[in-house]
């Protein structure tokens, strides 16, 4: 019985739901007790999943139960009663909106499968139910929606909030008298057997109460890129408010969810979707995949999976899928002006990686319109970033040969080192002579002490007297040493990492102060500004070896010196990578603390159970003492790390606020429109910080509200914070 349950677990293959319900129906017709046991097992499973916050799983369980009504296993009135209990959650007070959202979603999403049957048996109750849902949907707060939309424009396809879209689809289904023709229903063929079966009543199911640590699914927006005008030949795409559209998208999402680790299987399963001859399947697949890739805050699966999946699909359908993909890419390009910045990042990464698998073949001339506009506009920006990423996966000359000559302004710079002290033309620079001495010393494997002695000769432009005792910050010293070192190590990443490692001591000495850390980053940028990839890996290495800290990197990225690079992708890749390192660091120490605490607990239990053994007792006490000390140390470490983490976010948000306030004030005094490309990028980058790190930021909401996002703030900036808060309501 449990084996049966496992192998038919609707959680795993929800797209084949109706096959399994039919099987259960036939078994129930033969053996009433089996049906009863099965339903009981499912209810237990449902309770478990809800208790453990597995809300996405729970949807499929409820859907399975509702389809069992169609198979005469469950009596319709008892299903309606369960739905009524779910919808009554909308009457609860002081609960997060996402909680009642979920219960409403579950009910609505079952109706394509079971709406007809329930209406035939209990139309009055169902009408009342739908009316309650309608009332709830009208009262719902929708502040969060704009933060989750892929495009800011309403045309050509509005991106609807997912519940609004589903409601419209159910309304239409109701108007069509619940005629639903897309779902495969094997049980219809067995109706003569099934209608003889005895049905079971669902036990009364009270939704579990709200717990403070509950994690309900986040709201989302329905991604649409295609409509019936887009598939030129063959079957027509079902309309955006048709229930078919909902069912197809649901099933395709399920297939990806089930098979995402196995790309060949996933592609094959997608392409063998039942009923594929009646729908433009390739269009649906491409739309669903891009929908997931662009989902905000983040895709359900790792970005690179979607790239590889699309490549597999192209391999299986070489005559048709690449064309649909090209069409989608065209459309995405045309709508870049209103595309969310974070989504554009993913599009850049996907497109460049995809091209690298197909010899970078693309009709660049089709995009010649991007050449005539200001380079800060989204289209030329996009092409520029794509070409830069393409270069990283190949080499500079390849890109030059690839694009038409007219595109030369968008080609990335050749990623060469810029050495200040390169030749005699630099002889007049204050650090020139010492750069040669240091360079020779390094080549001759001088010791750290010897090199530091040489560096003592470097004058400090910040100081009046030559007295260089103590570790006062000397920017020229850093400049001379680091430029020379990185120049000698410029050949490859490995050479540069080796250099940083070898001279770690010197670098730590030079960057002892905050100014020192900031300056080292400045120098790294100066020498490698044509090679952002190198800058990113060096910054990463310097954080990991504690030459600089995360706050220094944040301050550097927001500094005036970097203002002209503010809208480039590599800046944000470095910032998010820095935040992630900080988060992982905190998690690591927290884990160590938990492990030490567990160890102590076990040790204490052991002592209690071996209470009579004196020797054991003494050793045990020693060990416990050591563990307690360790725990105290780790506790301090955790607090210190969390403090550093909080500070990092404060720095970042503070800088954003400063920059944006400046811009808003400047525009106001100049009576200029605030919505420049720079401003759109800035505000969306701020949103991205909230979205990408929402789990961590949640811990610091109090501080953020008291210190930064107060009522005095300009309402444009405050709105971002309020939208973020709305996501959790």
């Amino acid at each position, binding site marked *: 019985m449990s084996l049966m349950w496992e*192998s038919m677990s609707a959680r795993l293959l929800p797209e084949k739901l109706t096959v399994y319900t039919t099987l259960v129906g036939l078994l129930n017709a033969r053996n009433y007790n089996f049906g009863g046991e099965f339903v009981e097992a499912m209810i237990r499973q449902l309770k478990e999943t809800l208790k453990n916050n597995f809300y996405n799983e729970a949807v499929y369980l409820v859907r399975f139960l509702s389809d069992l009504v169609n198979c005469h296993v469950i009596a319709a009135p008892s299903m309606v009663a369960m739905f009524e209990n779910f919808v009554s959650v909308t009457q609860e007070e002081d609960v997060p909106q996402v909680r009642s959202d979920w219960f409403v979603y579950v009910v609505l999403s079952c109706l394509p499968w079971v709406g007809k049957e329930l209406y035939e048996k209990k139309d009055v109750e169902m009408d009342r139910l739908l009316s309650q849902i309608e009332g709830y949907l009208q009262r719902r707060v929708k502040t969060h929606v704009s933060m989750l939309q892929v495009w800011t424009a309403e045309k050509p396809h509005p991106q609807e909030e997912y519940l609004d879209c589903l409601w419209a689809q159910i309304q239409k289904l109701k108007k069509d008298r619940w005629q639903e023709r897309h779902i495969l229903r094997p049980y219809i063929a067995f109706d003569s057997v099934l209608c003889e079966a005895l049905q079971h009543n669902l036990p009364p199911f009270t939704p579990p109460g709200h717990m403070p640590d509950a994690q309900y699914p986040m709201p989302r927006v329905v991604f649409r890129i295609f409509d019936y005008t887009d598939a030129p030949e063959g079957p027509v795409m079902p309309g955006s408010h048709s229930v078919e559209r909902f069912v197809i998208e649901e099933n395709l999402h399920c297939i990806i969810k089930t098979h995402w680790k196995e790309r060949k299987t996933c592609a094959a399963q997608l392409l063998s979707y039942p009923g594929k001859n009646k729908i433009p399947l390739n269009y649906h697949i491409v739309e669903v995949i891009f929908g997931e890739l662009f989902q905000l805050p983040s895709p359900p699966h790792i970005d*690179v999976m979607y790239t590889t999946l699309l*490549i597999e699909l192209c391999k299986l359908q070489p005559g048709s899928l690449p064309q649909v993909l090209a069409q989608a890419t065209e459309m995405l390009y045309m709508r870049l002006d209103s595309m969310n910045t974070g989504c554009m990042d993913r599009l850049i990464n996907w497109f460049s990686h995809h091209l690298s698998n197909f010899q970078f073949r693309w009709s660049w001339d089709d995009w010649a319109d991007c050449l005539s506009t200001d380079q800060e506009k989204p289209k030329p920006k996009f092409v520029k970033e794509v070409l830069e990423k393409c270069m990283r996966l190949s080499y500079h000359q390849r890109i030059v040969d690839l694009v038409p000559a007219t595109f030369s302004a968008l080609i990335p710079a050749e990623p060469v080192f810029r050495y200040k002290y390169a030749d005699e033309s630099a002889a007049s620079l204050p650090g020139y002579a010492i750069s040669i001495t240091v360079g020779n010393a390094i080549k001759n494997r001088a010791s750290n002490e010897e090199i530091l002695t040489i560096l003592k000769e470097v004058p400090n432009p910040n100081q009046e007297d030559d007295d260089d005792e103590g570790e006062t910050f000397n920017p020229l010293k850093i400049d001379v040493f680091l430029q020379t070192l990185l120049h000698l190590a410029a050949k490859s*990443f490995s050479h540069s990492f080796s250099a940083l490692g070898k001279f770690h001591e010197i670098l730590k000495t030079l960057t002892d102060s905050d100014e020192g850390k900031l300056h080292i980053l400045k120098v790294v940028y100066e020498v490698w500004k044509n090679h952002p*990839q190198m800058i990113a890996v060096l910054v990463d290495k310097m954080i990991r070896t504690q030459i600089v800290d995360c706050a220094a990197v944040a301050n550097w990225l927001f500094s005036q010196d970097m203002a002209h690079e503010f809208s480039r992708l590599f800046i944000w890749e470095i910032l998010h990578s820095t935040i992630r390192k900080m988060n992982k660091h905190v998690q690591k120490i927290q884990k160590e603390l938990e492990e030490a605490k567990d160890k102590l607990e076990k040790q204490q239990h052991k002592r209690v159970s071996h209470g009579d053994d004196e020797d054991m007792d003494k050793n045990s006490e020693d060990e416990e003492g050591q563990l307690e000390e360790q725990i105290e140390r780790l506790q301090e470490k955790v607090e210190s790390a969390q403090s550093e983490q909080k500070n990092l976010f404060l720095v970042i948000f503070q800088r954003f606020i400063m920059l944006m306030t400046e811009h808003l004030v400047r525009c106001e005094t100049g009576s200029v429109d605030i919505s420049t490309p720079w401003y759109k990028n800035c505000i969306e980058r701020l949103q991205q910080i909230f979205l990408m790190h929402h789990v961590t930021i949640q811990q610091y909401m109090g501080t953020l509200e008291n210190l930064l996002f107060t009522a005095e703030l300009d309402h444009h900036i405050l709105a971002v914070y309020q939208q973020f808060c709305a996501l959790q309501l």
Partner: protein
Amino acid sequence: MSVKLHALYSDSYVDIGQYRDQHFKGQLGEQEKLLKQSHTLYVGNLSFYTTEEQVHELFSKSGDVKRIIIGLDKVKKTACGFCFVEYYTRADAENAMRFINGTRLDDRIIRTDWDAGFKEGRQYGRGKSGGQVRDEYRQDYDPARGGYGKLAQHRTTEALNSF
């Protein structure tokens, strides 16, 4: 029945392959154990001209790369078409096996496989001529991997000399 159930949880791209390093020093079964825990991947079929930067860019798509060691010809000390990629976490390495293995780098389909862990000396090719063993015996012409296989090159040279 249990075989079928296993298929539902399948993750075949992450399974360890058939290759075992003949120079591996350790007890029976130890290599397998290390492979199953490894964070390091062997990457094969690279072009001789593929750079560390290109490898880093591609493999960073599945997570933070800890280090890359480019495979070298033992004699010439130049790249000879393979490398090791080490990740900080096993999970990131698994995603590389799932989504980067079998795709293109520098226009070539590359192959990744679990590695028991880098040790000094393993960065060198083990073929007689200094490169990889596979380049000793292959018959085809591959301009990105030194042209013809070494054996074929020798034969050609001998034939020319005896003429």
